[in-house]
């Protein structure tokens, strides 16, 4: 079982991102869950989304998880959310920030013994450059592919094209570029 917790703000596409990842994974014969805790949350409110991935049908309906990966897709949430909640000794963190990894970790006490499993990528700037607005949900998945080695980049890009097929070609192309850049730039 692989478990992922997203830290996001409502409106940044974490639920869409979690469902998109789930859709790609399901095509490879694996079982997935993609869900969120939001309810009556308003745009901009801090929220969590979640993924579970396994070879067997997943019957755990508990919301809380002990994540293998934590995605922080809003830069400020790294400072204000409890991002290391229910941490495991090998939980890996992928954090959106314009800061260098050293600068970020030096400002977040909870991450200071986790430098070897913390990764940074500026999904905000990447999505502004490519998609034209701050939409960090797809680039974070590019970074995730690099860190987790779950799938080859080309396979993931092809799969995401199908997931995004209802969008205009321009938006699909921009998302592909964003995923590729995050894959290459995550440190």
């Amino acid at each position, binding site marked *: 079982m692989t478990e992922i917790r997203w830290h996001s703000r409502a409106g940044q596409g974490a639920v869409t991102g979690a469902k998109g990842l789930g859709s790609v994974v399901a095509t490879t014969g694996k*079982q997935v869950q993609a869900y*969120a805790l939001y309810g009556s949350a308003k745009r901009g409110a801090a929220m969590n989304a979640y993924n579970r991935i396994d070879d067997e049908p*997943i019957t755990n309906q508990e919301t809380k998880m002990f994540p293998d990966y934590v995605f922080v897709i809003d830069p400020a949430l790294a400072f204000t959310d409890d991002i290391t909640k229910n941490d495991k000794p090998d939980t890996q963190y992928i954090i959106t920030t314009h800061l260098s990894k050293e600068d970020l970790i030096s400002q977040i006490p909870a991450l200071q013994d986790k430098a070897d499993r913390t990764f940074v990528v500026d999904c905000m700037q990447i999505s502004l450059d490519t998609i034209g607005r701050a939409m960090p949900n797809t680039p974070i998945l590019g970074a995730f592919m690099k860190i987790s080695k779950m799938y080859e980049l080309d396979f993931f890009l092809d799969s995401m094209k199908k997931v995004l097929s209802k969008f205009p070609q321009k938006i699909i192309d921009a998302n592909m570029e964003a995923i590729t850049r995050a894959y290459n730039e995550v440190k």
Partner: protein
Amino acid sequence: MAKEFELNEVEVWDGNYAASQALRQAQIDVVAAYPITPSTPIVESYGAYVANGYVDGEYVMVESEHGAMSGCVGAAAAGGRVATATSSQGFALMAEVLYQASGMRLPIVLTVVNRALASPLNVRGDHSDMYLGRDSGWVQIDAFNAQEAYDLTLCSFRIGEHLDVRLPVMMHQDGFTTSHKAQNVYPLKDDVAYKFVGDYVPVDDMLDFSRPVTHGAQTEEDWHYEHKAKQHKALMDSRTVIDEVFAEFKELTGREYKRVESYMMEDAEVALVLLGSSVETAVLAAKQLREEEGLKVGVVAPRCFRPFPYDLVRDALDVPSLKAVCCLDKSAPGGAMGALFNEVSAAAYSTKARPIMTNYIYGLGGRDFAVDEAKRIMKEQKAHADAGHITTDIQQFSGLRGPKLGFFQTRRG
């Protein structure tokens, strides 16, 4: 002619979308709806299918849930296949008309996304609305995940519209936990799904002008009792039809449903009985406890909440090794023991084993039900079994903050 919807062999759908797709495939004549969280996406998606040509039927926007169910009653009496969706306060506002629908023997399908009832206002999932429908004379079927929400919505049409049943059917799923959690769903192709549901056969339809009929007549002490007794008999007799429909669905898909689902009960010493998505978490906890501690735990889950499967619950609990059973109710009991506890205890009383029965209230307003908490409750049942009597209060509260709350003590042992 409605367009075919292109579906993949495996889709990643949440429970709401799964239910909406099943409604689309059933080719309903009239959906009258008023959206409410967390069931809103069911009718929202359905509205999009209508607008985009995937449905031939009518979509009627009404002014309230009372209006929605009233519209459904009118359309069903006129002779159409009819369905809608609701939750919580919307369900409560429908309550009056729910009894009209069942009394008039109209096979409406209502997909209910279970949610807490105010006050305090809460949008999250518990079983308050499902319990509110208990005595309304509807068949109530409970899906534990999104795949089941899809499958059992298709089955609901078959059950309710069966000429030996002719009763409305509620298809329940848990708010957010199921309705908003995407998972692998294996849908049927449109033509296969429709063939399973079948063409609608009208009975005493008001649009048959060659044969005028009266619906919703008044009966006082002369006939009311006979009508209600007959309605109750129809509900009780629907058990065999439900079994047949589930058997036919298994034949088609390989997916098996029973009026009472039973897990690892063959040699169980203790068991939990519960409803909804928590069943899956409890089964996981039971498997883990068997592996980790060798504790023989089983889980029993009424798939069919109404007609209450007294017969099959008794069969499930009539295990010689069974010593202690805990029934978990996800609805505020309002000054009583939990309703599931009362009904399951009555069934257990007619078994040879007569296990110790206890009650937990849990998960109100969407409070998370943890695997570890399920295990703790299971181990507590083992302590009752070892002592030979209930070692705690009979009714307790799981996952409640503040002082421990409990009611009533045993006089056995």
